[in-house]
């Protein structure tokens, strides 16, 4: 078979599968809507987790810890300690805040400006802000803090471990919930598509039987159903994207207003291009997979016969 014939065959199958769907608009709409809802739910959870990170000021910020140097320890020692910490395992970055910079920042706050002016000398120490790697869990973070505490010239390591642990646990829970929900709902899409394709195979069993009798290969018989599954996935993915966009648009403003009442600047994040593409890809894979499971199970059972 020539390449052009092969491409023509695929194009015909793809268009033919769309035609099959358009001939049953109500059934197609119901199936596609179910697929869309199933895909939209884990995607919405993903957006929620991403927004949760924003609420906490980002993963990295909330896990940063401060290292206060002892009074009288010079800026040279602070810079040296920063260099030592930067090469430690588990450390992403270290920022040095000199005592002068710190007091200048604090002076901008009207509440402190007067008090600072009354002091003869700068009471603030040099400080290091350490950002651990995202991969460092709560226990490792605690260990890292303890090690830094033992360093020469360090007065105090301020590590808000409880908050870091809590946030880590919540996000871990939500992430796992997302995986489980996503897995279950993708499985549901595979089952829905598989069952729909199974019914279509049964309805077209006479045609399949004749095609096999005339010498159709398994690939020839299988192809229209795989395209059918693919279209279910694509259309379901598009519906999921619409649900996601409309849902975020509808909930965004009320959530921001609600958060504002509690003094938070929380905003529900929007769906990014990559997350929308991921939803579409999930739909395509689930649709294709559902069609495969159906054809693998049911096509072999249809064999030609002469009465």
């Amino acid at each position: 078979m020539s390449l052009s014939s092969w491409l023509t065959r695929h194009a015909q199958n793809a268009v033919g599968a769309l035609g099959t769907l358009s001939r049953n608009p109500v059934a197609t709409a119901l199936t596609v809507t179910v697929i869309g809802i199933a895909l939209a739910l884990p995607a919405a959870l993903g957006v929620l987790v991403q927004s949760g990170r924003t609420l906490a000021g980002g993963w990295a910020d909330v896990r940063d810890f401060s290292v206060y140097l002892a009074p009288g320890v010079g800026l040279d020692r602070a810079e040296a300690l920063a260099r030592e910490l930067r090469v430690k395992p588990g450390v992403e970055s270290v920022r040095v805040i000199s005592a002068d910079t710190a007091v200048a920042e604090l002076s901008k706050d009207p509440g402190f400006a007067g008090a600072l002016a009354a002091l003869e000398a700068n009471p603030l120490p040099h400080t290091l802000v350490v950002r651990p790697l995202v991969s460092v869990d709560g226990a490792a973070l605690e260990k890292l803090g303890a090690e830094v505490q033992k360093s020469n010239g360090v007065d105090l390591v301020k590590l808000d471990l409880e908050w870091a642990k809590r946030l880590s646990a919540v996000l871990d829970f939500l992430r796992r919930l997302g995986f489980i929900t996503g897995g279950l709902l993708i499985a549901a899409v595979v089952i829905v598509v598989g069952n729909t394709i199974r019914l279509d195979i049964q309805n077209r069993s006479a045609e399949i039987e004749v095609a096999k009798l005339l010498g159709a290969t398994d690939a020839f018989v299988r192809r229209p159903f795989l395209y059918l599954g693919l279209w279910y996935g694509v259309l379901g993915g598009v519906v999921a994207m619409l649900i996601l966009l409309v849902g975020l648009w509808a909930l965004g403003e009320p959530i921001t207003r609600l958060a504002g009442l509690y003094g938070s600047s929380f905003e529900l994040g929007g769906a990014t291009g990559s997350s929308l593409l991921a939803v579409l890809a999930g739909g395509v894979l689930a649709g294709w997979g559902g069609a495969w499971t159906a054809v693998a199970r049911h096509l072999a059972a249809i064999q030609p016969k002469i009465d």
Partner: protein
Amino acid sequence: MIRFDNVTKRYDGAREALKGVSLHVEAGELAFLTGRSGAGKSTVLKLIALIEHPTRGSVTVDGRNLGKLKDREIPGYRQQIGMVFQDNKLLADRSAYENVALPLIITGTGQREIGRRVRAALDQVGLLDRERYPPRTLSAGEQQRLGIARAIVSRPKVLIADEPTGNLDPDLALEVMALFKRLNEVGTTMLIASHDLHLVEHFGARRITLTGGQVLESSVAPLTESSGASGP
């Protein structure tokens, strides 16, 4: 072209449909397979179409021992066999053109070539002006001719037919048989199962008579009552 060597076919838990059948159809020959209902005619055709496999013995078509074909080779083999069925096995939701085009679509023939050959086949069976019609709008004779057009469109070396005139009135039956005769004259090997002895005798081709799953006789002579075959 078609050879059965001592072929026995036993269906699960049932009697033997064929008992040590040996027969041979030469290349380019037109042969009729006759016998009463249950004599084993359809089983012979099923074995040729690879819908069934022999319990014992071997079936060879165009030099290929069918028992040695791998599963993946079966579609390619079937593409080279033309088949006509008593119930036509036409696709009701497709036009006459699309039904005839199906074997060529399966083999990946180009669109232009498909158009040319489908129209030639429809012309050969006198249905060129019906190419857009779905089968249900055609008469029984036209449907049977459409089935024949589908069987010959891929220019098979071998054509098998199972009671192709079973649902037709005598005039239409003669018309269809005449079509087979013309196809045979251009070199197609044919094995046609039919219980209609008068029709078979009309064409004077070789008869292979089956009775009780065995070959009773193979001849061109008119059959006697003892042959076990029945007329219409």
